[in-house]
Each structure stands twice: as C-alpha cells, then as structure tokens.
C-alpha cells in the first residue's frame, strides 16, 4: 500500500472508551499516516514494544514506562493525558465510605468491614495503583512470589494483597469491564477508571448498580504516556512516523481533541502536555 502505516500497542481502556476511534481518523486526516491498533493488557502492550512488534506504545503505568525508556526500548515518554480512578461500591455502602476523599482510608474501612472487594489482579495500571493504595493503608499485606526463568536467569514475581484473599478480597485477573460486571454481580467494592465506569453505567441498557463512593484523591491520578520504540534497538521500526504520532498527540491539536472528547456528556481524559487545551 502507498499509505504509510504504523503499529501501536495500547491498553484496552483507550480503545474501549472510544477515544482512539475519535483521535486516529483525525490524525490520519492531518498526516496521511494510518495507525493499526492492538489493544491488550498493559503488561502485554509493553512486551510488544520490548519485542519490537510495534512502532509505538500508548499505555498507563508510569513507573514501567520510565523503565521501558531507561532500558533503551523507547526513545522518550511523552506525557499525553490523565484520567482518574474512583472507588465504586453498592448503593447500600455496607462499609460506609460514601463521600470520603482519602482513598487509602476508604480501603482501610472496607478491609475492616470485610466488605467484598474485587481486585483486577492482572498487573494492569489499575491493579498497580490498587496495590499502591493498599500499601498506603498501613494494613499488613501478604506478598506472594512466583519464580520464573527468563533468559536462563531465575526471577521472582511479586504480588501484594491484604489479608483475606478468597474471603472478602477477590482477585479475578481480568480487565476493567469484567471487573465491573463482577463487582456489580457480587455487589462489591472495586477500583475503576472513570471512563470505563461511565461507559458501563450510562452507555448500556443493562446499566450498573454501582456508585462512585470515593473520588478526588491525588493518589487516584492516572497518567497516560506515549513512547515511540527505539530504532537503535529495532532498526525496522518506523520511528519517524511513530514520533510524528507522539508529537501530534501532545500538540495543541491533539490535546484539544482529547480535552473535548466526551462520552455520554462526560469528560474522560484531561490533557497533560497542554493542561488547559480546549
């Protein structure tokens, strides 16, 4: 084909929220570059970049993104936008956290009440954030490690959770949408990004019997970054085009499009490169 095409791995939330469906056609219109999107778990998306399968990644796990760049897989992380996490729960709110701002305190109350809590448990950005929040509660945590071999070297994988796994704390190892469905079925608490929540709550006939009970904490901030894959690692990547894409995202045009994107009348993402873009 004559048209230049680049490949991008991203997390499911950017695709499922509909953001990319709005952004990409505009980008193609502006530059003539087409973007093939592969949506998957954050971990798998970063792996795609490390294996050189794509030209650019667009994810939300800041620490891992920075590691990705420092290990030389990516050229540079462009901070694109953020959205925020919210703690959801059943309308009856058995743990009584409605209206709380302090997320760690809210989780602590849930743990004390042994009210059902659904954890994504999939090492995603959301799960990483959840583990950080639990650490902040000061409750004793259980660390579970698994040993695997990579490149002949043994490596331990750690996974933290509060006591009570399997009783009130359920780790389901699935994506956001599925975690919401699960929490809804079990009428349990969970941590979710606002975009997926709005989509499930308002975008569907089936609705969702869960409400935002805790929001607004600094710690609930969820930044997204875009990173072109380093051509020094993989000579075949289309760095120029990928870099143009990244730069377009953080350009006033890209940032304005993000700021103006509304799902069911609600703003989902807040531009980070030009915070007051309109």
């Amino acid at each position: 084909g004559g048209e230049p095409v680049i490949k991008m791995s991203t997390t499911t939330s950017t695709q499922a929220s509909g953001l990319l469906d709005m952004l990409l056609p505009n980008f193609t219109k502006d530059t003539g570059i087409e973007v093939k999107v592969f949506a998957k778990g954050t971990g798998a998306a970063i792996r795609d970049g490390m294996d050189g399968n794509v030209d650019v990644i667009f994810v939300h796990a800041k620490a891992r993104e920075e590691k990705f760049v420092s290990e030389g897989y990516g050229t540079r992380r462009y901070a694109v936008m953020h959205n925020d996490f919210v703690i959801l729960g059943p309308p009856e709110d058995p743990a009584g956290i409605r209206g709380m701002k302090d997320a760690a305190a809210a989780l602590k109350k849930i743990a004390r009440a042994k009210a059902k809590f659904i954890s994504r448990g999939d090492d995603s950005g959301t799960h990483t954030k959840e583990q950080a929040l639990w650490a902040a509660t000061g409750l004793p945590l259980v660390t579970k490690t698994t040993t695997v071999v990579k490149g002949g070297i043994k490596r331990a994988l750690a996974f933290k959770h509060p006591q009570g796994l399997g009783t009130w704390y359920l780790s389901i190892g699935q994506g956001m949408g599925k975690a919401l469905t699960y929490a809804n079925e079990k009428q349990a608490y969970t941590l979710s990004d606002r975009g997926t929540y709005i989509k499930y709550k308002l975008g569907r006939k089936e609705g969702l019997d869960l409400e935002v009970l805790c929001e607004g904490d600094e710690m609930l901030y969820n930044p997204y970054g875009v990173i072109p894959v380093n051509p020094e690692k993989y000579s075949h990547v289309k760095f120029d085009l990928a870099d143009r894409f990244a730069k377009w995202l953080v350009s006033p045009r890209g940032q304005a499009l993000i700021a103006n994107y509304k799902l069911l009348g609600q703003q989902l993402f807040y531009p980070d490169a030009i915070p007051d873009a309109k």
Partner: protein
Amino acid sequence: MNLLIDSFISAILLLKSLDAEVCAIVLVSLKVSSSSTLIASLIGIPAGFAIAFKEFRGKRITITILNTLLALPTVVIGLFVYAFISRRGIFGPLDLLYTQKAIIIGQVILIIPIVTTFTIAAISRIDDRYRKSAMTLGATTLQTAGVVFREARFGIMAAVIASFGRVIAEVGISMMLGGNAKGFTRTMTTAMALEYDKGEFVLAVALGVILLMISFTVNLFFNYLQGRARV
C-alpha cells in the same frame, strides 16, 4: 526458542515447588473439565444414538444444526448463560454466576455438539448387522445400543477425548462464567490468560506445559482403558 526452554524450566520449578496455588488451579481445572465432559457425554452419547438410529423427518437438518453448533463461540455461550444466571436473570437467585457450576454449565453446552456429532459419525459407520444380530438374539433396545456402543467404542472414545481436550483448554467460558477468582474458579487456562495479559509469557507457557502434562497423563489412562477394552 528461549521462551520455550524458559517456560519448560519454569514449569518444572512450579511443579517441584508444589506451589499450593498451582495445585489448587490444577485441581479446579480437572474437576471442572471432567465434570463437564462426563455430563456432556451422558447427554450427547445417547442423543447421538437416538439421532443415528431413528429415522425421522428432519434428521438431516438436525445434523446440520448440530454441525452449526460446533461453531458456537464461547462468548455467545458465556453471554447466553450469563443472561440466565446473572442477578437479573431467571436463575439469578440460585447464585450460580462465578462458580465452578457456572463454568460446567457453559462447557457442557459447548461440547454437547462435539460429543453428539462424533457419536453419530462413529455409529453410522458400524455394520448394521451388529444391530440386527443383537436384536434377533433377543436384546432390548438398550442392550442393542450397548452392542453397537461396544463396536463403536473407539470412535466414541475419540469424541469424549476431544471434548475433554476442548474444555480443559477452553478459556472464554471459564473466564466469563467462572470469573477467574483466585482460589475458587481460577483454572489453568484462565491463569494462563492472566499471565499473558500481564506480559508474563514465560509463566503463561509454563502453565500450558503443565496443562499438557496433565492432559497427557489423562490420555495415557484413556489409552490404558482402550487397551483393556480391546481384549
């Protein structure tokens, strides 16, 4: 290639450590898949016999529909069962969703067409004289079916083995209806899917290697059964 070697070593490590979590997952997998294979066989084999033996209007279209159902996607089955057993569904009060029972229900629906169509295929090629011999010697319909079953046992066994393989390797239904809850409904495949999503490919394949080892053991057992049945 490294991936495979690494995974193999990791699988051995996992098995050696007799990790309680891994054990639990393996047990859930085995329990769920053997239950659904058993139930589907108990339904599908007699159904296959009935369809193969009886001459009735719409027989060919029945077989065509069964063949169509071989292409039933797990997402459809998952959502279909979900619609019934979710909180809002008719069977909501039974609180089946996200239990092993829910997985079994979905998997049974998944493999009944496999068991049934291959039972039909296995039986329809059995020489009709077996049926006639049994009947003239005074066998009841059930006893006659027993004779034909004996003659077709390898074909039917193949159907059961394939169904077992299908469910133990199945991920969609287990994920949607079981919910992959750690310690309850996490099976080998849902665990693998999770590790894959995390990007932990080595661990995913290591679990796969364990799954294949288990499947191989089960098949050795089937093989032993067939060997005995050969006499």
